[in-house]
């Protein structure tokens, strides 16, 4: 779920840097490295990218709390979509408690990554 944070943030802030193909290949790489079913994270990240980027105008110039709140929605969609796809591929149903735990952890650590990405974004803007 770490990659969901990155893709969710950068696809809104800098869609010129993070293209759908980048999110897709990040997912493929994650699948290959972590041993997840091939294509699973690729599809999830692609959907997160598209969902976040399509709402760009809605997100910009809003408070951090608002971003956090919206990210919680995107992450919820991402984890349940992933759970659904994984259940189809692996032909088994993963325990809901673990899914929710993973989701809560991702949402809780978002502010730390959000602040870090915001600083990075300022640095990138200065360079340009």
């Amino acid at each position, binding site marked *: 779920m770490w990659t969901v944070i990155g893709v969710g943030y950068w696809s809104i802030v800098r869609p010129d840097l993070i293209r*759908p193909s980048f999110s*897709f290949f990040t997912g493929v790489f994650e699948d*290959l490295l972590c041993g997840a079913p091939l294509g*699973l994270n690729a599809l999830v990240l*692609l959907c997160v990218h598209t969902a976040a980027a399509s709402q760009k105008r809605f997100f910009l110039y809003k408070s951090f709390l608002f971003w956090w709140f919206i990210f919680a929605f995107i992450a919820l969609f991402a984890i349940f979509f992933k759970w659904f796809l*994984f259940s189809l591929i692996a032909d088994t149903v*993963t325990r809901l*408690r673990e899914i929710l735990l993973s989701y809560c952890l991702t949402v809780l650590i978002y502010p730390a990554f959000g602040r870090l990405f915001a600083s990075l974004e300022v640095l990138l803007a200065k360079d340009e």
Partner: protein
Amino acid sequence: MKPPAGHVSRLMAFRLLLHRFTFLTLMMIAFGLMLLGKAETLLVDRLRAGIGDAFTPLLEILSRPAANVAILVENVRHLVMLRAENTRLHEENVRLLHWQAVARHLEGENHALRSLLKVVPGPTASFISARIIAVTDGPFVRSALLNAGRRDGVRKGQAVVTGAGLAGRVDRVGSLSASILLLTDIHSRIPVVVTPSRNRALLIANKGTLQLIYMIGDGPIAPGNRVVTAEDAYAFPPDIPVGIVTHVKDSLIEVKPFVNTSTIEYALLVDYGLSGILPDITLKREDR
């Protein structure tokens, strides 16, 4: 020389079309990859092993600070629980001293009986120690990456143990790295024996717990029974501790593993020269 205007507009239109359908195209590729992952497992395994090999040096560097932080957290936790831990260790020491006396007695008796029956000793195991450089311990996948591979003698199917017991088995082998399928992963299947009843079963991970299925034997099973590996299908060496039965209700038997798979740092790979886990066909081809 400038390209003709009609040519440029056609190119632009194609780019626009491509951009518009990027999502759809990538989505179809993702579904294609899912099918490929199911159908061409060897190709995907080779890809995974290649990626694992390529990123092993980087992950090895990154894993050291993470391991140091984990040690620090563990040390603080131990300091907080020092008094309770001391009492527990005293009690455990008394219990272990008793078991040491029993084990010595049984060792002598076993030696005497073996020499009487002229028992042929079983195969000796070889061990490879390796560091775990990455652990994926999420709700979907439970695997770990080792910094040892084919060149170090790692083979697919080797049992992975820690001081506490079985942690999993080697799933994929690259030349510099190897991937472990942890026993808590939903794809893990381990032939086991429940002691003292000696009932045989298959240990699987289902909905976050380890469960025993396909039980053979009529012996009683109760919470507290130990579960060890069975030599069925020549997949694992026998009698490696796996876990303890925690819950028995009708046909549902839950097992708690001895190894906490999310905190392993080092692992031993045990090779008894068994051939139960199917070897990589690609490796066989390379050997020819």
